[in-house]
């Protein structure tokens, strides 16, 4: 029941927002209340799942296990934060405030598609949900209707939908493989149970097409080109959702396939994950250095982190999988913090250009320290959560004896670390030499959001609460097969 409510609530809220008479007045409060309710429901699901192992709403269609719950929790948490941030940010930056109810209507739809991905158990329905995450967020990316925003939205739609078509073919091949092996329930569990009889050729084709197709949406390297555009041109709260959780939700679908591929192909699937992951980390680490726009900087860092998580999943073994799960959590929270900080800087300075911003911390201590905090945290400096995750992954890789992969990963991480901090350092410190176009006070919801999200980013770096540890362990077991 709870799971069905989670899917239906944002749809109802979206309809309410779209009715102009209601939406024009109360779209923001409706959305805020909806997202808070979703978070409460997701926490309830988490408790039920940790008590019973899983939660079944409609057998064979809507169920949740630990891995799904983890993604669900992250989506709802970042959703609440992004909505709260929007309350301060959107009225400040939107030209036509009369159209803000469109924004909230779309935001509800976007959240609907993202909470649907982890709770549906059929691969074909999961494909649909992922397709909807693109379709329902394209107009959010182009919301500002500037030349750049529309171009970014177009690229986003075309590249990710092409990827989705390729993945669709993969899912159909997967269905074929399941039927050939004698299975008749097209769910993750059903696939797992017939995996030993499945044809390796079909599984390999399906896995690779889905990895490449959905890889486009996750931001894995050959098809990542849309990501820095879309993730930098969208309104800041949407960037946080796109980078923090949308990519993760799609990666979740790929991770779901790993244990099945493991049974059919041995380590074949993991090897491909490792190759794609390392390639993405490496390319992104070098691309980070040459950016001119600080929102693009964080977008490239998303490509890097998706690569890290996939690499960890590809290393194999319980410890690396635990690291991957931990990294999913720390990346989602830290990246949304980074984008919230970037949005605050944008409000204060009115420019996205890195070179035009200097000595930020003198002009605006809040924006400056938030950006510094976010930059250090996402680069993987020691007391933060990302550091702990990366360290766990490297350590697990060493224990597996995969020295080459670990060495490459470590090398790329160091390059990315310096790449990010080089830019952040220039912006935050030094003598401020430019008049900021709009040196206004930062709206209080934005400050509060930054404070909220900073707490777990720091705390999880030194201490992992027991319930979270439990969920992470179980989720890691699921992708371990």
């Amino acid at each position, binding site marked *: 029941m709870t799971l069905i409510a989670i899917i239906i609530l944002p749809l109802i809220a979206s309809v309410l927002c779209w009715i102009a008479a209601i939406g024009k007045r109360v779209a923001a409060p409706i959305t805020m209340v909806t997202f808070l309710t979703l978070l409460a429901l997701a926490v309830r699901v988490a408790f039920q799942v940790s008590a019973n192992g899983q939660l079944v709403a409609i057998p064979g269609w809507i169920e949740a296990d630990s891995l799904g719950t983890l993604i669900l929790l992250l989506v709802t948490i970042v959703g609440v934060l992004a909505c709260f941030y929007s309350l301060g940010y959107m009225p400040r930056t939107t030209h036509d405030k009369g159209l803000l109810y469109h924004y909230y209507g779309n935001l509800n739809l976007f959240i609907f598609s993202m909470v649907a991905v982890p709770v549906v158990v059929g691969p074909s329905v999961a494909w*649909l949900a992922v397709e909807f995450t693109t*379709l329902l967020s394209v107009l959010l990316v182009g919301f500002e209707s500037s030349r750049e925003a529309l171009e970014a939205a177009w690229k986003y739609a*075309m590249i990710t939908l*092409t990827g989705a*078509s*390729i993945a669709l073919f993969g899912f*159909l091949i997967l*269905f074929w493989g399941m039927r*050939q092996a004698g299975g008749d329930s097209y769910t993750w569990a059903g696939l797992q149970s017939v995996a030993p009889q499945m044809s390796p*050729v079909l599984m390999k084709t399906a896995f690779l097409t889905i990895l490449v197709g959905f890889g486009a949406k996750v931001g894995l390297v050959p098809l990542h080109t849309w990501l820095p555009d879309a993730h930098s041109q969208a309104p800041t709260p949407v960037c946080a959702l796109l980078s923090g959780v949308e990519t993760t939700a799609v990666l979740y679908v790929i991770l779901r396939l790993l244990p099945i591929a493991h049974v059919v192909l041995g380590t074949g699937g993991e090897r491909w994950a490792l190759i794609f992951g390392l390639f993405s980390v490496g390319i992104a680490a070098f691309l980070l250095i040459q950016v001119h726009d600080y929102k693009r900087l964080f977008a490239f860092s998303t490509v890097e982190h998706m690569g890290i998580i996939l690499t960890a999943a590809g290393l194999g073994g319980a410890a690396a999988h635990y690291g991957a799960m931990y990294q999913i959590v720390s990346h989602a929270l830290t990246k949304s913090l980074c984008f919230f900080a970037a949005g605050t800087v944008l409000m204060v300075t009115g420019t996205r250009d890195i070179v035009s911003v200097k000595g930020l911390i003198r002009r605006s201590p809040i924006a400056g320290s938030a950006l510094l905090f976010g930059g250090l945290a996402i680069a993987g400096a020691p007391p933060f959560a990302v550091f702990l995750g990366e360290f766990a992954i490297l350590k697990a890789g060493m224990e597996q004896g995969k020295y080459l992969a670990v060495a490459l990963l470590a090398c790329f991480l160091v390059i990315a670390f310096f790449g990010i901090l080089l830019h952040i350092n220039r912006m935050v410190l030094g003598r401020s030499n430019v008049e900021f176009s709009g040196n206004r006070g930062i709206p209080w919801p934005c400050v509060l959001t930054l404070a909220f999200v900073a707490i777990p980013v720091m705390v999880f770096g030194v201490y992992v609460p027991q319930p979270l540890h439990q969920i992470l362990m179980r989720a890691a077991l699921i992708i371990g097969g």
Partner: protein
Amino acid sequence: MTYSTQAATILTQLNALAGAFFLLSTFGMVATRQVQGCLRFFILQSLFLASSAVLLGLHPLSWHLIGVGIINFINKPIIIPWLLRRTISEEVYKRREITQALNIPISLLIALGLTISAYYLAAPLLQVGAGLPALINLPIGVATLLLGAYILTVRREAVPQLLGLLAMENGAFFASIAIAPELHLFVELVVAFDVLIAVFVIGVLTRAIHENIGTTNVGALAALKEE
């Protein structure tokens, strides 16, 4: 030869014919310059997809596949063109594309190469024991998937790019009616709905680009190029 096997042979041959025309209309999408013409070839392609589904559903009788055929028949040749015309202004359809990245003869040669490689790509899959329909439908589906991606890459106008995307989806479904005929009808319905939403959203986006930037030549948008 019994009546039933004779009927099956004829149906298989008809299906092969539908497949040939399906592939041919995809080539038409590659070759035509007019936006309007591209749309017409897409409608043809969808009609052949629908008829292939119905033909495969007749013997052995499968209401499921016939249902898929009907969904496709209503959705793609009728609703989608209507929706496109509603969302995007008439002027866009009258365009001729002069700025295609590669010229038509070269495009057709590449398309031919892609089709041949599709047969090579599909060959190992077919060895796992595919039925007769899959032998026809799978390679053609893969070829259309590749050709759709090709159209998407070389076309610069918004509507042909969208049609390339839809052609890819048609290709995946052309293969699916042979290899995954038992896919839940609910899923098929939602996928049809999803295609409609895709057309609607991209239509709205195209209109926004047309109104704000004054062109639908999306290939020329380059404000975000990395230097």
